[in-house]
């Protein structure tokens, strides 16, 4: 990433403008794009996509499958199997592009919407449902897949990520060892445009900057924080926030999986090498409701949605693969079939999830159980038992 002033974000992007919905007032700003909405490859002076078409096919598969997972989860919610669901619709490229840029040792701190990143990290999609079904608060072990639990308190995880990255530093895991062909480790924190207003996120920027922590701040600017448009959070493009904290910020077309991959990869590389944090603003759009509980017709116009449909992250890759990479329908059909299988498995798995037992949960509050709580548990167990056989 070229820098004109040390520590200040580069302003040297290709002259591609970020799209602005018809009803939005904000000015057009340039962003990094490598694949146009029409599926044409374009080049950028600072970022290039260095993988082959096989990789692009992989991205297509990833995006298609996570969209299907998401659709299935939404359906499960509609049918009362989940209490709520936070859809990633429209953000597949941002999540797959960044998720696929991660190395095995990199650590992820997600919000509640990073189903695509979870997929990249190998988290069983079924495990994502527990929180929304109300049977657990994330059943996976974050250490198995280097993917932390979903964090719902807006912005809190950016500090966790920064602290984790400070731990990587202290472990000597930052700065590659070229002799051993190791890359170093980095951490990535996901958060939304709304989250950028939280004190915690700004403190994370400060800690990361002051300690030069190997962390990438990946902001999915999907233009909305529930009903609040982006202009409630900032009056200038979000990526510029970073410059004021002394590290680079870059805006990427978040609906372009190639560009998101390239930009995130470079930011992660910087982090792993010991050059400190980067803010990546993935400019995208929340195509669905905030969650299944939300009713976006109350606050936004359908023409915005129509406008953004033309920028769909999956369609453009399909167009590219068809037109420029000679991929035929067999490939797409196979993926559809795979998606069908995954969706069926997800549905079946969801329906057969065992209901949790409160008695077990008494033991989770502390590593070393307190006598009081042990007593509460015993009393509750006895009380619950007194109802057994009642109906």
């Amino acid at each position, binding site marked *: 990433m070229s820098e004109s002033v040390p520590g200040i974000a580069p302003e040297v992007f290709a002259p591609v403008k970020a799209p602005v919905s018809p009803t939005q007032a904000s000015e057009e700003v340039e962003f990094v794009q490598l694949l146009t909405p029409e599926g044409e490859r374009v080049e950028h002076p600072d970022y290039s996509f260095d993988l082959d078409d096989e990789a692009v096919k992989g991205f297509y598969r990833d995006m298609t499958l996570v969209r299907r997972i998401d659709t299935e989860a939404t359906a499960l919610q509609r049918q009362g199997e989940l*209490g*709520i669901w936070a859809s990633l619709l429209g953000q597949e490229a941002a999540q797959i592009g960044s998720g696929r840029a991660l190395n095995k040792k990199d650590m992820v701190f997600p919000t*509640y919407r990073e189903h695509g990143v979870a997929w990249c990290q190998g988290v069983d999609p079924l495990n994502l449902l*527990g*929180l*929304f*079904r*109300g*049977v*657990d*608060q994330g059943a996976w072990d974050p250490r198995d897949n280097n993917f932390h639990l979903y964090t*719902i*308190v*807006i912005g809190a995880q950016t500090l966790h990520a920064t602290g984790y990255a400070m731990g990587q530093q202290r472990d000597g895991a930052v700065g590659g060892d070229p002799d051993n062909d190791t890359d170093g480790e980095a951490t990535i924190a996901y958060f939304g445009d*709304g*989250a950028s*207003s*939280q*004190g*915690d996120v700004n403190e994370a920027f400060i800690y990361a900057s002051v300690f030069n922590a190997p962390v990438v701040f990946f902001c999915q600017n999907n233009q909305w*924080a*529930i*009903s*609040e448009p982006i202009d*409630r*959070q900032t009056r200038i493009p979000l990526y510029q926030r970073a410059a004021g904290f002394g590290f680079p910020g870059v805006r990427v077309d978040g609906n372009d999986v190639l560009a998101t991959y390239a930009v995130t990869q470079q930011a992660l590389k910087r982090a792993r090498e010991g050059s400190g944090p980067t803010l990546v603003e993935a400019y995208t759009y929340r195509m669905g409701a905030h969650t299944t*509980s*939300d*009713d976006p017709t*109350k*606050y936004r116009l359908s023409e915005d949605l129509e406008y953004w449909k033309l920028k769909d992250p999956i369609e453009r890759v399909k167009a590219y693969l068809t037109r420029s990479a000679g991929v035929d329908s067999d490939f797409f059909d196979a993926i559809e079939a795979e998606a069908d299988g995954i969706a069926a498995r997800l549905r079946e798995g969801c329906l057969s999830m065992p*209901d*949790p*037992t*409160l008695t077990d*949960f*008494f033991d*989770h*509050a502390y590593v070393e159980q*307190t006598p*009081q*709580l042990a007593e*509460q548990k015993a009393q*509750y167990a006895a*009380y*619950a038992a007194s*109802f057994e056989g009642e109906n």
Partner: protein
Amino acid sequence: MAKISLGKGINMGLRAAMENDPKVLIMGEDIGKLGGVFRVTEGLQKDFGEDRVIDTPLAESGIIGTAVGLALRGYRPVCEIQFDGFVFPAYDQIINQVAKMHYRSMGKLKMPIVIRIPFGGGIGAVEHHSESPETLFAHVAGLKVVACGDPVDAYWMIQQAIASDDPVVFFEPKRRYHEKAELDESAGATYPLYKAKVVREGTDATLFCYGPMVKTCLQAAEAALEDGRNLEVVDLRTIAPLDLATIFESVKKTRRAVVVHEAPLSLGTGSELAARVTEECFYHLEAPVLRVAGFDTPYPPSRMEEEYLPDLDRVLEGVDRVMEY
């Protein structure tokens, strides 16, 4: 007389307060076009404009911190915290600034701020959306803490809280937002804000409760009739200060008390109430004040919340214990 829901009661109360006093502002996340995630502020921005119904950035410390400044400028901000679990980023501003301003200025500065918090569980939500953090405010000198339990109280209490020159943390029982009751707007707010209410008279024991547990306790009292027990139910309404006069009077009459709340047992409202009642009514008590409360764990995933939350059976079990002590 119209039948209104508890949520509508707050909404109408806010509207009335804004109509009566141009200095009343409301602020929070998603309270404008969306009308709040519970629709409690529905229609207000349309009628009072964006300057009085302020959609804020997503930053709770900012909501309360700027409300302090607005209050110093003569406004009466009503701040909505979207869910109970999200008030904590604002906790410093509440504890160190809002609560202390009147004291540290030796009475010169007032903080007529209302902090509305939908609280409690029972709606099948994910983590951080079902908390009962009232102790964390009630312990703090300088704050007043109230909870409404029915639509009529909702309507009047929110207006009284806004009219109060002290800062008020106003808890709304989110799972009761849709409960309905008849409201007679012309009646006027006859019942004081900082006063508990005997919502059911009884003789054998008193159930103390507030917010979402009022309905539960009233149902329990009905059910207890089957066991031949005539329970008194007191809706505390004010958690800080507790209305000790009403509390003591009821205990001296029934001689047995059970406090019911969703908040964890230890250091919950019940602990202070028990300590006070024991100090004052020691020789009147036939049994110690018992407590039916949330357990001392974090709030569980929602499939278990029915077991976690005090319900009719757990209340009755508490009544059994206090009667048989």
